[in-house]
């Protein structure tokens, strides 16, 4: 018998290598369910999962919803447009309202970092962080690690380059924790305006050019550029950004020969990755990431179910 000794999954930072492996292995077993004619098992029958999204997200929300449904849980989507603060409520009021609905698991996405952590301290239900501000996005990092493991057979010893707006990226932070813990060497790259202070203390090497970062890399992970960041003057124009940071064919000569290319989606084609690379089945694993997303989220729901006795 094994067990994920956690009430909540709030971030990769607080997960051990064993816990990460447990989720990945469980997810690998779940992959097959999605290939069945009846893509559903009765495991979480009678359990309810609230997908509480304070920030628009079609992909992650849909993925969690499908994961819940394939496990026969009742999934309820709540698109909360305003924060508790705007309503004049405290988070505790929000927590009590949620508890009154008596769910088993709450999947929470919020634009403000730390909100899942605050809520987790207030409710007895399990909280899964589906992305909080620029902090963590554990399910994304787990599906990324699952994809790397499937394509490369391992994570330990690989060089992974993460390129783009590291400053605002929860995907980068979760992957830095997870990949480092699983034994990969992680490097990051982006313009200095997109590089958070003290990033080296997280155990990564930081570069300002894509070429320096991806040299010999086994995995290249490109981050999405939020167009509205242009207003904060962290980059002057998409044209200039893409000219210097868009992954294109010429870069693939610098990576390891069998390097894979990843992106958390949705892609700005021609901004982060050139279309010919994004659609090249020889290196692009972007669609595998989506597929693994459901399995990883099934594993998270499954392992957290049963409460924290």
């Amino acid at each position, binding site marked *: 018998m094994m067990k994920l000794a956690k009430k909540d999954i709030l971030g990769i930072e607080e997960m051990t290598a064993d816990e990460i492996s447990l989720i990945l292995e469980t997810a690998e077993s779940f992959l097959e369910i999605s290939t069945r004619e009846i893509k559903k098992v009765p495991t979480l029958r009678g359990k309810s999962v609230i997908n509480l999204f304070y920030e628009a997200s079609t992909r992650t929300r849909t993925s969690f919803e499908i994961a819940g449904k394939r496990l026969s849980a009742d999934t309820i989507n709540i698109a909360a447009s305003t924060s508790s*603060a705007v309503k004049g409520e405290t988070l505790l009021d929000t927590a009590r309202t949620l508890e009154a609905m008596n769910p088993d698991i709450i999947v929470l996405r919020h634009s403000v970092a730390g909100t899942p952590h605050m809520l987790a301290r207030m409710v007895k239900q399990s909280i899964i962080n589906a992305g909080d501000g620029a902090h963590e996005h554990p399910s994304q990092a787990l599906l990324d690690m699952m994809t790397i493991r499937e394509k490369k057979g391992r994570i330990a010893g690989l060089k992974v380059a993460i390129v783009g707006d590291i400053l605002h990226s929860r995907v980068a932070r979760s992957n830095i924790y997870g990949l480092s813990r699983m034994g990969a060497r992680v490097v990051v790259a982006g313009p200095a305006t997109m590089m958070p202070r003290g990033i080296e203390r997280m155990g990564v090497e930081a570069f300002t050019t894509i070429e320096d970062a991806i040299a010999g890399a086994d995995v290249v992970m490109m981050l999405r550029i939020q167009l509205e960041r242009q207003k904060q003057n962290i980059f002057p124009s998409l044209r200039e950004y893409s000219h210097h940071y868009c992954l294109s064919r010429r870069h693939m000569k610098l990576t390891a020969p069998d390097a894979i290319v990843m992106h958390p989606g949705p892609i700005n084609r021609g901004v982060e990755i050139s279309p010919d690379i994004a659609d090249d089945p020889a290196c692009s694993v972007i669609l595998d990431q989506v597929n693994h997303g459901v399995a990883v989220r099934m594993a998270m729901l499954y392992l957290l179910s049963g409460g924290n006795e």
Partner: protein
Amino acid sequence: MKLLLKGARVIDPAQNLDALMDVLVEGGKIAACKPGIKAPAGAKVLELSGMLVTPGLIDMHTHLREPGYEYRETIASGSAAAVAGGFTSIACMPNTLPVNDNRSVTEFILRKAAEANLANIYPIGAISMGSEGKQMTEFWDLREAGIAALSDDGNPVMDAALMRRAMEYAYSLELPVIQHCEDKNLSAGGLMNEGYQATVLGLPGIPAIAEEVMVARDILIAEYTGTRIHFAHVSTTGSVRLIRAAKKRRLKVTAETAPHYFTLTDESLRNYDTNYKVSPPLRGDADVSAIKEGLADGTLDAIACDHAPHGRTDKEVEFEYAACGISGLETSLGLSLSLVQEGILPWPELIAKMSCNPARILNLPKGTLAKGADADITVIHPDLAWSVDVAAFHSLGKNSPFSGRKLKGRAVLTIVGGDIKYDGRASQP
């Protein structure tokens, strides 16, 4: 009423006094301060051996929330918190609703303060109308109404030209100008100190230079115009360095810091506890050391707690939407005593930073036990161990990151104008 305080260690930095002696209070004034005073007829005698008797403590940076935010604090509850924390006088910032930018608000505050009849309250008037940084307020009129200083508090004057004019005009009126230094463009969107901890927590950062750029600017204005400036709640290494250099050049610059800036670092935000959210934000270890050095070498003249009481709906929300500030009046002295316990400040210097220095900066006739002075006295039990219980705060603001913290030493008697306004001796273990 006559009061005789007997047998305590009397520390009055204004008179360079630190000795065992007695203090006699008559008619609201200090009648005598010397050893072996015989109790006159009808005097109430307080035996205070083992205690410290100091000039009434002054907190020159508080927020009393009235008018406008009475659910956070009223002038009455804030006054009660002040005397319970050992403060006989406090200055309150103008960021009320409406802003204290005109005579009627100042008069309202003073009337409420008189009704509360606990601590002396000195309103600080706004520099600009609505603290919007555009149109200067009527400094002269505000002074006549009773303000002690000028500040736009958390909406610092971003317009350097306005700041220059305000400092010149205020100087001619002998009104101190207090600046909360924060370049709002550099701090825009920020929620905590920029650095490794913010990177790990994924919270937008406020760089130290947001504070330092404005400190530097205002020092330059003070030098150019020959006027004076007081810096509120200094939090960074760079600010301390700039102020130290300015003082060395004998510019008219003074500065304060708050207990949380020498007690806590940004690492305490690891749980996203909004009680640690303050403005300026908690900084790093190096900054904490620099603040302690600044206190020790006199660069920082005063300790003021930036008392910022909040209601639950202000604090118990998402980190970004949570209000900044700590309800500090009732923990300020206890936290500051650690500076003496750690050997950073000798007793008289700590008392100076909490009494005569703020009095000097605000031109108040306070902060001394000299014969004839107002009998504002704080009696401190220096060894009393206690733990912070926010539920027992007199302040309506229960927002303190120090809840549950064990402290050593606190005020046990607060005397304002010869009257005992707080007596905590009975409730102590």
